[in-house]
């Protein structure tokens, strides 16, 4: 609703009617009145009003009148009902992928499935490894959160994680284990856990109902229907995510120390990959240029400096600055980047369709009213060449700092 100041006839009517039960409550405290002896009395506490920063303001110009609070529309944030499981009859354990430290859409689907399986008696336990940036576990449907942090789980440590999960197994004995059957870690971790626990999992499951689950089998030409086992590796869109309840996210701790195993696989870290060789559809970080880019040499230089895969809008491709296979949008490639940096792209609807799956969009543009700015999470209004040059400089300084730290 708009912030137009409106009269409230009902409040005015109550103010006139001294016998109304709400009369006293709704009356604004008078700042001055005539005492019994004809002397004017003042209440200094009632003078003024509270400003937008929470600081008391006194307006002596005479513009301020009467009621000192502005009537505005009630805030439309709806508090969802809280779903409390005090004494869970059983547990459903979920191990989300947490790509980039947040719950992905796949994880939320999985939590939706877990809540379906938990019903009103069971509790959904989410097991999260390492640092995370998620703050919406409650609306995603997590009743209990088991956060396992520590250097043991840093980097690629699947064997250590499986040990931790088997400790969870011996403490809670969950009725079901749910993991995402994804390439970002869930598929591997789930299968390792299955081998460790000796459970036969159902994989690529896309439907669970009434104790039966259906999953893709073979190369996807067949479905396998079976009784739902304890360990389920579920595909994307296996269930609807939780949408109408809030959950407690009560922290949970492991009782026993997790055994430390000698890692047989040593992680030597990520390897620099040429960003130009990554297919655009699956690139993680795309720097995309459009009509607003005038200095293409600088643009290519920026892509190298940032380590980003290059993309382009249709105009840039039509004008011959970029090749056709780099075009992002409805008639080009639908990208799934986690971070999409759009330089000088105003955001035609076809282009916005192409970046629909991107997580974070950053826009650099001259026009503050264009559609790309409305879509972007961060927009900088200004000359793209100057901003790109400053960004290259900043990243170079950051890289040097890192080298100095390493040395």
């Amino acid at each position, binding site marked *: 609703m708009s912030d137009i100041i409106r009269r409230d006839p009902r409040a005015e009517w109550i103010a006139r009617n001294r016998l109304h039960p709400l009369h006293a409550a709704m009356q604004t405290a008078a700042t001055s009145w005539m005492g019994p002896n004809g002397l004017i009395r003042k209440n200094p506490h009632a003078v003024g009003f509270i400003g937008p920063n929470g600081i008391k303001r006194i307006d002596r110009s005479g513009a301020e009148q009467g009621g000192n609070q502005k009537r505005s529309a009630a805030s439309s944030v709806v508090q969802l009902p809280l779903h409390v499981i005090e004494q869970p009859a059983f547990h459903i354990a979920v191990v989300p992928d947490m790509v980039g430290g947040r719950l992905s859409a796949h994880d939320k689907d999985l939590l939706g499935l877990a809540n379906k399986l938990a019903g009103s008696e069971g509790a959904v336990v989410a097991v999260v490894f390492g640092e995370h940036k998620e703050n919406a576990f409650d609306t995603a449907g997590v009743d209990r959160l088991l956060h396992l942090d520590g250097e043991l789980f840093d980097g*690629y440590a699947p*064997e250590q994680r499986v040990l931790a999960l088997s400790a969870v197994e011996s403490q809670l004995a969950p009725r079901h284990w749910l993991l995402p059957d994804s*390439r970002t870690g869930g598929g591997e971790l789930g*299968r*390792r856990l*299955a*081998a460790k626990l000796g459970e*036969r999992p159902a*994989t690529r499951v*896309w439907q669970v109902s009434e104790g039966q689950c259906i999953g*893709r*089998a*073979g*190369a996807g*030409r*067949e*479905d*396998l*229907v*079976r*009784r739902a086992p304890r360990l389920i590796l579920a595909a994307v*869109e296996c269930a609807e995510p939780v*949408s*109408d309840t809030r959950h407690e996210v009560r922290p949970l701790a492991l009782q026993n120390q997790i055994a430390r195993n000698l890692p*047989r*696989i*040593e*992680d*030597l*870290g*990520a*390897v*620099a*990959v040429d960003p130009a*060789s990554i*297919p655009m559809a699956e*690139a*993680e*970080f795309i720097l995309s240029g459009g009509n607003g880019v005038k200095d293409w040499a600088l643009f290519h230089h920026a892509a190298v400096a*940032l380590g*980003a895969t290059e993309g382009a809008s249709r105009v840039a491709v039509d004008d011959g600055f970029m090749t056709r296979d780099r075009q992002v949008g409805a008639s080009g490639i639908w990208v799934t980047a*986690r*971070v999409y*940096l759009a330089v000088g792209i105003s955001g035609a609807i076809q282009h916005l369709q192409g970046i629909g799956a991107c997580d974070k969009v*950053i826009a*650099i543009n001259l026009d503050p009213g264009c559609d790309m*700015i*409305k*879509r*972007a*999470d*961060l*927009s*900088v*209004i200004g000359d793209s060449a100057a*901003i790109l040059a*400053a*960004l290259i*400089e*900043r990243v170079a300084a950051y890289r040097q700092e890192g080298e100095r730290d390493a040395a």
Partner: protein
Amino acid sequence: MTDLNIITLVSVGAHPTSGRARRAEQDARAVELGLRLAGERLQLVHAGDPQEEALRAYLGMGLGEMAVLEQPPGADALPVLTDYLRHAGAQLVLTGSQAETGEGSGMLPFLLAEQLGWPLVVGLAEVEKIENGLAQVLQALPRGQRRRLKVRLPFIASVDNAAPAARQSAFGPARRGQLLASEVAIVDDSLLAEAQLQAARPRPKRLKVIKAKTGAERMKAATAKAAGGGGQVLKEVSPQAGAEAIFKLLVEEGVLR
């Protein structure tokens, strides 16, 4: 690196459209990787029917023979393969990441690793070097990324579509190659007794459900523009300040390496 003892486990695949038997895509990539590492000394093992013609496509990639552990369809391949590998003395076992027929759960390499007590590398893309009983390998990650790992021999590795593409199969060598069948104990797979395979149903498309209680809310949901408008807009800032804000977000998201 030709002194390495490498075994590749192969299966019979199915063409995605016709369903006709063929060499499995990922297994062929595993054979290709093995050929690059060990050349003609690569050993192939299959558990199943030795009369299957599709198996010859692997031999056509430049190998003279293949060991076949004879099993009827529906038998469990895990115990016989575990037995075979325990006595084969291999330093590296390569597999695809999931079968194209049957259950295709992708559990085989994990169960083999568990039973043999070997480490397992998932999504092997390249073996960089092997020395002093340690292998340095590249693992394929989603979004085209790579990770370098060091593993102690012997180990099992599964390959997926990030491994090098398989070479063509030649007809002549495929005909001349030999499938050496051997008798093994037959263990039935318990899964097929309780589960049934059916033709894949198309997944239902997810509907956009609008949970509105009042007419005004429904109207709002129906006419809402996409675009959140919740983004931060920096106007009239210096290029340095703008670049700093972008840089901060890039670091926060962890895309700058």
